[in-house]
């Protein structure tokens, strides 16, 4: 009457709040609207008083202020059943289905959020759909439980297969360790044989060289390294350039009696000019290229260096000329082998290429055969040839052992790598390694090869684009519910591509969807029995029931 135009104290929610629909079952303990059963006891007036204290203790208010559509408590605890408090929570009982908490912002907003309709007053007319939803959810749960159960059987097979594979890997690993020991002994033996053979070979070649050297002396001279020549020339230039003006003049040369070519006791202007390419003076560069070649021999003659060539030079020379028949030094070949090995791991995309990579060092190292020679082979005498042949055989024998060791190491690495990938708690994922699963959409064929890579290929052809390489398990909180593949092909103007694989339980392994919500970040939905865990599923759904 008097307050017709004053708003009644939000009558409807208040009534709903204080009178619980049906008293009886434990879940229907009378309590204000929006309060979960667990908190029912907190909503009692103080003994002997009509007052109540906010759950955060901040204020004491009349008990009638609870759910009166005005926010009195800072924590919103006085309005569990209205939208009055900004950060409040409303508890839907949802009898027959699952109870949920919704933010108070969704209470009385005209949208039915609770299946029992308790978040909206009667005017909106939310139907109670909890029984239907509950039944549907029960069916869904049963189906899911069944799926998990049947899936778990397959998973069991995957587990035994995985465990078997792991056992095989371990056995193989032991076998490899054993073989490695054998091969290492063998290597020591072959190493010794090789050294012996090479000593004989080197000796024979040395003798042969000795004979050849005189013939080749001039050529050898010519082939001296330009670098060394420049250094010598520069030193001489400095010596000649007595006035330090950066040029060597005719007069500066005339003091060097070594340049007296006709040995008449005087270095004439003409004689000096000859050495300067008929110029008055030369700078350092011109000296190195034009003057030094003419001066050098005379100087060496004077220093007595010309006749017997320097020992180091000889050694260098020997190597250069024998290169064709000498095998590449073992050290180098090992590096090459390592390189090739690295490629092996990384070059999946260019699978064909690594075959060549593998072969290259083999050819180079294995046989120092005449057919690789570019230069004309020195014509060794038969005895030297025999010794070289023997040395080659010894080298090849050693190399074979070393190759075998490398192969063993490679296989050991592969096993280690597999062990480190993490095939799940019980090895159930192991069988997926090495498999690939495709998914086609309108434009692309996507491929997921678990533990290796995710990729994409246009349906209209073209090259495959790597979306990511195996990185890690990344599920939170369940680690084995998500995989991450990173470091895929770079996006134009963007990051490297990457892929997240969301995993769920099904009877057959299959990619069911691929999307790219973020540019160059792909999401795969992958189903597999490996993700079916009957027990975990059951305990989860039991937890849900507990809340009821």
């Amino acid at each position, binding site marked *: 009457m008097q307050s017709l135009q004053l708003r009644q104290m939000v009558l409807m929610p208040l009534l709903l709040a204080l009178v619980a629909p049906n008293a009886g079952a434990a879940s229907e303990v009378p309590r204000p609207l929006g309060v979960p059963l667990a908190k029912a006891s907190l909503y009692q007036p103080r003994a002997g008083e009509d007052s109540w204290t906010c759950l955060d203790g901040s204020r004491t208010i009349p008990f009638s202020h609870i759910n009166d559509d*005005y926010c009195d408590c800072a924590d919103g605890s006085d309005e569990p059943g209205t939208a009055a408090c900004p950060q409040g929570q409303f508890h839907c009982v949802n009898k027959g289905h699952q109870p949920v908490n919704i933010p108070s*912002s969704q209470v009385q907003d005209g949208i039915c959020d609770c299946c029992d309709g308790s978040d909206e007053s009667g005017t909106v007319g939310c139907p109670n759909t909890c029984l239907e939803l509950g039944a549907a959810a029960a069916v869904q749960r049963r189906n899911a439980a069944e799926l998990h159960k049947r899936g778990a059987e397959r998973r069991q097979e995957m587990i035994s297969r995985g465990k078997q594979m792991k056992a095989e890997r371990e056995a193989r690993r032991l076998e490899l360790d054993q073989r490695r020991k054998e091969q290492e002994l063998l290597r020591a033996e072959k190493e010794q044989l090789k050294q012996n053979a090479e000593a004989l070979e080197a000796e024979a070649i040395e003798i042969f060289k000795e004979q050849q050297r005189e013939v080749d002396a001039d050529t050898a001279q010519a082939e001296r390294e330009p670098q060394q020549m420049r250094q010598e020339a520069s030193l001489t230039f400095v010596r000649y350039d007595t006035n330090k003006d950066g040029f060597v003049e005719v007069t500066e040369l005339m003091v060097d009696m070594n340049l007296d070519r006709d040995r008449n006791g005087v270095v004439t202007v003409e004689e000096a000019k000859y050495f300067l390419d008929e110029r008055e003076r030369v700078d350092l560069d011109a000296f190195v290229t034009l003057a030094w070649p003419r001066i050098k021999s005379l100087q060496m003659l004077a220093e007595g260096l010309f006749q017997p060539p320097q020992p180091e030079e000889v050694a260098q020379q020997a190597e250069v000329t024998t290169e064709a028949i000498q095998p590449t030094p073992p050290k180098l070949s090992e590096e090459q082998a390592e390189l090739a090995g690295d490629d092996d791991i990384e070059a999946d995309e260019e699978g064909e290429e690594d075959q060549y990579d593998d072969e290259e060092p083999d050819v180079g190292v294995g046989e120092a055969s005449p057919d690789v020679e570019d230069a004309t082979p020195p014509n060794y005498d038969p005895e030297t040839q025999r010794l070289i042949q023997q040395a080659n055989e010894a080298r090849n024998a050693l190399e074979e052992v070393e190759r075998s060791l490398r192969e063993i190491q490679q296989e050991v690495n592969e096993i280690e790598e597999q062990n480190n990938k993490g095939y799940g708690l019980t090895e159930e994922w192991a069988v997926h390694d090495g498999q690939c699963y495709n998914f086609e959409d309108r434009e692309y064929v996507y491929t997921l090869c678990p533990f290796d890579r995710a990729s994409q290929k246009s349906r209209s052809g073209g090259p495959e684009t790597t979306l990511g390489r195996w990185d890690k398990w990344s599920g939170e909180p369940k680690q084995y519910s998500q995989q991450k593949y990173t470091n895929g092909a770079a996006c134009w103007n963007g990051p490297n591509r990457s892929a997240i694989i969301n995993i769920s339980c099904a009877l057959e392994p299959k990619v069911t969807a691929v999307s790219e919500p973020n540019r160059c970040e792909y999401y795969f939905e992958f189903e597999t029995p490996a993700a079916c865990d009957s027990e975990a599923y059951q305990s989860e759904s039991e937890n849900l029931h507990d809340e009821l």
Partner: protein
Amino acid sequence: MLIVSYRAQRTAGVYWQNAAETWVDIQTSETNVVSSLVNFVSGSQKTPPPAAHFMSESGIVDAFIMLGPKPMDAFKQYAALTGTHELPQLFALAYHQSRWNYNDERDVTSVSAKFDEYNIPMDTMWLDIEYTDGKRYFTWDKFKFPHPLAMIKNLTELGRHLVVIVDPHIKRDNNYFFHRDCTDRGYYVKTREGNDYEGWCWPGAASYPDFFNPVVREYYASQYALDKFQTVTADVMLWNDMNEPSVFNGPEITAPKDLIHFGNWEHRDVHNLYGHMHLMGSFAGLQQRDPNQRPFILTRAHFAGSQRYAAIWTGDNFADWSHLQHSVKMCLTEAVAGFSFCGADVGAFFGNPDTELLERWYQAGAFLPFFRAHAHIDTKRREPWLFPERTRQVIQNAVIKRYSYLPLWYTAFYELELTGEPVIRPLLAHYPLDKEAFGVDSQLLVQDRLLVRPVMQQGVSKVDVYFPAIDDKKNSDWWYDVDTYQRQERSGYVSVPVDDFKIPVWQRGGSIVPKKERQRRASTLMLHDPYTLIICLDRQGKAAGSLYLDDEKSYAYRQGQRIHVNYEFAHDQLVNSFVGKPKYKTLAWIERIVIAGLEKVPSSASITVNGVSQQLEVLQHDNTVVVRKPGVKMDVDFAIKLNFA
């Protein structure tokens, strides 16, 4: 082209009406070299008045002088000349979530659901060009969006809206009905030789409807009818982009000047009107589609008067701090030139803002009239939940704050339609006697009630805020921090500390601001929610302020279905008085009254309605007094008196 010149004593403006390419030289005493030279030679101290020199490529001299004398007078005179915004639907003033592009139906629905999961209000999802079938507007990509109506329903059932982009370039494809119609009927803009002009834009080869032709506008408008464009509903609104028009292979990326329009006008004569004519067609289309809904259109191109049809945004900005600063300057400029409904892409179109820049951008955007987050297709996704929790909370906070002030924004837009007074204003609009306030462009006023100084620098723990003087003696209004109700009483710069969450906003002493402090997932769901009145007292212990409300959606307000009410507080009493009859029926009521600036705390309050009084509880809270739950409905006369024991 509008130029307004301010002096403490007098403000005047000139509006140069010309749609051709126009250059303006502005000469002030500082920049005018010749005059300073003359003064130097002649020894004169007299500085010439500032001058503007307009140069248009073609057309006639058609200029309008606005005599002021105060800045607000000049703004209103310009509005009287060119028109004002229609009151928008409330949702248009709420938060918009956009991206180029939400990829498919699932993406749209799940982004909408995430806003609920994280309890962040959001009203409108936007679809950029990729929703179409090959950039053929009025069609959908059938693979990504096979069920647009179901997707739209998912949004509208939650009180949300969808906005789709419809650009003016038309794909030249003989299987595309729109292109066939335009070709057959000669609706396209023509080349000098009389052929259909063909340019290059998003669809590839494209032509441009000649919106100068009323028949073309009518045809265009008719395409929005729901029996034609069957895959949308009347709740789907419009985004008109690229309507300068953009032509990728054209001179200056637009149409050649020698194209021929309806009535034999060369493009050079009417270039700047093309977007405006496009808007006229769109606006008519939406009005005809559903005469009961106020259209919402966002446009990029606009001309004097386009404010009658659309909102604007500041175009393709970059993720850096200077562009954040420019968003305030640009929108203030637009606002005093008749275009209040302005905003910038929150977070920026290009680039990836770091969390700090994104947070500050949301906070600034929450206090500009048009509040939309948008991003380029090459940027990383940046919906609020993709960031660390703290960033998400800062964003949530800013968005909730925006929603709490929606009654003020809505009232301001109604009063803009009524009077032509800009919704946001530079300080000089209300403080013309304070010369130092003229140059302040990092602060804005919302009407004359709020002063906003967004944080727009990186890594700052305080900002300098200028409190303007009301006279030339440095007297000032009182300003109350809206978070703490701490009061600023003097004019001049004040260094104000800010943390991550702080948006420096003050309410003017002497003003009353209506708010809605209950959170909802969308503004449309707040329709019946109760109001809070924030009363900040001036030096005389007085305050006044208005509130406008209606159904927030239809044109019924023009038939009187509205409530426009003034609240006045004086002598410890709050009374309301209606402007016209309060005919709109609402369930909303007044939930609380917050009073800042009282000298004593009252013991209680009493409300009197129709001669009947009732006692109300009064609570002290921070620096304010809160009158608890007056509970009075919005269309009822009342008086609330504070009682002091």
